[in-house]
């Protein structure tokens, strides 16, 4: 009950509740108070418009329409509730039938319900109205039966969900009769959504009833409900529009009130609504911040493909901006393979998205320099720039299963960019797509090009994604965890392919990974990111032996190799990654660092070059650590975290 009260906390919920209660109160008191006013015949004042005496005018016998509308509340609500009760009871019978009757008869009931649900309620109501006869009683039965299939299906779904639970299974094993299980275990657990939907159903029944009465098939004179008043009123809409508007508004207010009340309760309880609008899914993990950035003052030669200085990415947070990438500088030369490693939350993926100009508002990207092939990417995107990005920069994303449009053929998806940027016609763009698919070793590319993504395996899709990047003449491939979502057996194929393309076409590669081994294997140089900053920048060959930052060393130590003692627990990095919303003062890694001293907690170490082309940000760089104690299978860890999001 307490949870039901939460409805009152939203403005809509509160309004709907107050209105619903108001309608119910009116239904009780109006006939007691005003029946005489409503029935009083005033032959001097027939079909009059609104006046001080008759607020909504009078009908063809001179009766006051305002009072008649008020008094009609009771009958309208009574009939709607009666119809709802019928709908719920019959619906429960239909809905629990499959459970009680067993598989075969259950399937027949299910199929019948599914066919009935396909027909709109009003059509079913008309059908039943013919069978049950014109009049209030017939209409109640008609609307009740018309609503039953929907309830039946809802009950079926709910019961099926509950009856597969353990406690129901346990009751079965214990030999409790099905009917008893239904009443003791199943129905109590589905009552909440049923009640909520019944409330909404009552609103719908009220409106349907008004509809039937309006057609002249419901309440008959001398009785009257809102629909009947509307039916009488619309005939004289030129003479006195109020006669039609008053009951119309009453129906609308009451119907809206019940409906919105039910919806608000449903929302408050987190209950699904029949035919309702699916709830908005939680917004995607905009803050997947994981990017290392290697600040690299690499020579200013003209062979620079990508040059990044002081890159920052910020998102608005509840208490000020969150900065998952905090000042990252690096550059990539033609043909170079740069790896970026770090845990999830380190900012490595966001760095990749930022340099590719794919961070969407409300995310903000700032940089002192962000050049791709000498073109400044910080300025407003121009057509020439889109073309440059579209042809020279290839992206490979983590999950090939979701990165292709499921509704379009693969060939078309590959060809699309070329048609747009290179002005190729449909046929030649498709021919190039087929050629590129062959280049990434997809067998039977002509046939494959006509297939949809779901007909491709994961590894094949990732190769197709790489092929898509090769449609232009890429100078840089940014691959964000390109093998994480793949089977171990195909990971190597994809890495080999990337390496082969780099070698053949002299393309630069930025490879984002949580996996030190992958990066060490493919890349020339590695940036290690932690909490949105680069903490170390070193040649990949030096990773294993001479890494100097304690975090880099922990990452390397966390990888089991042939010498790892299989009986010992896997190495783990203690503590948790830093929350980008709450970066501590001093060195961000200090809390997890075995070498941390007071200075580390107070003062942030700058990223300094050591003169040999390597950079490191640590007050204790290179000091010895006993890493046997702790260390972690960071990769696993991180992957789980990514999935958990």
């Amino acid at each position, binding site marked *: 009950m307490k949870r039901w009260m939460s409805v009152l906390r939203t403005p809509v919920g509160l309004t709907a509740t107050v209105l619903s209660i108001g309608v119910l109160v009116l239904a009780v008191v109006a006939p007691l108070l005003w029946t005489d006013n409503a029935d009083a015949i005033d032959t001097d004042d027939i079909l009059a418009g609104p006046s001080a005496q008759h607020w909504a005018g009078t009908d063809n016998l001179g009766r006051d329409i305002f009072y008649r509308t008020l008094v009609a509340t009771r009958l309208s609500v009574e009939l709607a509730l009666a119809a709802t009760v019928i709908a719920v009871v019959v619906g429960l019978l239909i809905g629990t039938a499959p459970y009680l009757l067993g598989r075969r008869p259950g399937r027949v009931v299910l199929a019948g319900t599914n066919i009935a649900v396909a027909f709109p309620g009003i059509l079913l109501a*008309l059908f039943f109205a*013919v069978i049950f006869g*014109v009049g209030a009683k017939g209409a109640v039965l008609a609307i009740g039966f018309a609503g039953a299939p929907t309830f039946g299906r809802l009950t079926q779904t709910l019961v099926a969900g509950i009856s597969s639970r353990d406690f129901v299974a346990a009751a079965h094993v214990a030999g409790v009769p099905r009917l008893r299980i239904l009443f003791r275990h199943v129905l109590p657990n589905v009552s909440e959504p049923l009640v909520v939907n019944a409330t909404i159903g009552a609103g719908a029944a009220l*409106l349907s009833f008004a509809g039937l009465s309006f057609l002249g098939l419901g309440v008959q004179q001398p009785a009257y409900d809102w629909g009947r008043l509307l039916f009488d009123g619309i005939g004289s*809409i*030129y003479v006195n529009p109020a006669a039609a508007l008053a009951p119309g508004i009453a129906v609308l207010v009451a119907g809206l009130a019940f409906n919105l009340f039910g919806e608000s309760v449903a929302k408050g309880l987190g209950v699904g609504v029949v035919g309702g609008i699916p709830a908005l899914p939680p917004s995607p993990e905009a803050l997947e911040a994981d990017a290392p950035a290697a600040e690299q003052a690499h020579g200013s030669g003209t062979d620079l493909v990508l040059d990044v200085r002081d890159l920052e990415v910020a998102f608005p947070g509840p208490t000020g901006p969150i900065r998952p990438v905090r000042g990252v500088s690096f550059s990539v030369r033609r043909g170079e393979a740069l790896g970026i490693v770090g845990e999830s939350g380190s900012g490595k993926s966001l760095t990749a998205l930022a340099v590719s100009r*794919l961070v969407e508002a409300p995310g903000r990207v700032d940089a002192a320099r962000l050049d791709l092939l000498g073109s400044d990417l910080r300025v407003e995107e121009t057509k020439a720039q*889109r073309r440059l990005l579209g042809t020279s920069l290839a992206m490979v994303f983590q999950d090939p299963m979701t990165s292709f449009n499921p*509704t379009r053929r693969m060939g078309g998806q590959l060809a699309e960019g070329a048609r747009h940027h290179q002005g190729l016609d449909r046929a030649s763009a498709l021919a190039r797509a087929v050629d590129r698919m062959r280049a990434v070793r997809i067998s039977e590319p002509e046939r494959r090009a006509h297939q949809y993504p779901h007909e491709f395996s994961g590894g094949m899709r990732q190769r197709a994604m790489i092929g898509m990047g090769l449609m232009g003449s890429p100078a840089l491939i940014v691959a964000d965890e390109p093998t994480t979502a793949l089977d171990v057996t195909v990971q190597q194929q994809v890495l080999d392919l990337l390496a082969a393309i780099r070698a053949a076409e002299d393309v630069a590669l930025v490879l984002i990974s949580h996996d030190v081994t992958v990066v060490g294997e493919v890349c020339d140089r590695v940036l290690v990111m932690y909490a949105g900053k680069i903490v170390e920048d070193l040649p990949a060959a030096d990773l294993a032996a001479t890494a100097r930052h304690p975090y880099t060393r922990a990452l390397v130590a966390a990888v089991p190799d042939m010498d790892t003692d299989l009986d010992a627990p896997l190495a783990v990095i203690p503590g948790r990654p830093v929350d980008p919303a709450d970066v501590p003062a001093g060195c961000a890694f200090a809390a997890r660092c075995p070498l941390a001293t007071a200075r580390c907690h107070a003062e942030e170490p700058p990223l300094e070059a050591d003169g040999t082309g390597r950079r490191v940000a640590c007050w204790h760089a290179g000091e010895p650590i006993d890493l046997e104690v702790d260390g972690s299978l960071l990769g696993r860890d991180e992957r789980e975290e990514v999935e958990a999001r």
Partner: protein
Amino acid sequence: MALASSVATSPRVGVWSHPWVRFGVRRLGRLLVSLWVLVTASFLMIHLIPGDPVRAALGPTAPAALVAAKREEMGLDDPLLAQYWHYLQSLFTGDLGTSITLQLPVSQVIAQRLPATLALAFLAFAVAVAIAVPLGVTMGVRTRRGHGRRTELAFTGTSVVLGIIPDFLLGVLLVYVFAVTLGWLPVAGNDSPSAYVLPVLALAVGPAAILARIIRVEMVTVLQADFVRTARAKRLPARTVHLGHALPNALTASLTLGGLILTSMVAGTVLVENVFAWPGLGSMIVSSILNKDYQVVQAIVLVYGVGVLLVNTLVDVALALLDPRSMIRED
């Protein structure tokens, strides 16, 4: 059902292995079963009515001989199964019986009335889609990733309220404002093009509001999908990303619910026609029910039912065209 299961058990060879063939056969099987249920229900309708439908139609004062003759003519005294068989046979030959009150073949009555209803339904459908798709897409793009919170609130609030207002009440309201008060448009009938405006609006606004809301939600979801990021990475223009990549995916999810809305629109014509004295099937069925002219009622119920089934089938086909995975999902 029978057809569908025979396909499922047969080995997947030759033409049966083609997804479109399997889909077509299965969907056709479902349509036929639904049609059979519909026809049987409409047949049983007359027999479920308490009392004698002929007596009811002709009135309590009609001579017993006349009632008996009419019963004889309609074959109501034959065994039920024989009647059922006869009913199915007549349906296949297009014979829907004779209207007791109009003294006309029912098929002729329907042929007279159907075009007006179809015109209304199609126009309303077109208007609803023409409003809902651009509106839903625009709103989806503008409110993605938590943008435009206020726009979203205003849009959702308005569309919820508009979606709940029943079509016939909206019709009354429109008549009051545009026909009675302003006098811009005719209050009833279908004699001039301007007479279409109000009934079409009355039918279209609610479904358009609901549909636009669904499309917005779906667009917001789809715009977060990885493949939209891929499309952006290809540096396609925003229009291509939104309409070419996001929209088809948003529509597949919207279509299922949209189909329900569209079928309810078919039925919605019944009420709206009565508001505007529209000379279609909707006003006919009501007067026939009141006059107890059951053969007409039976036939019109059948026509509406077939309409609904056709819409549902078309929605499934459209779904399969938009998203080929939906064909497989049903397997």
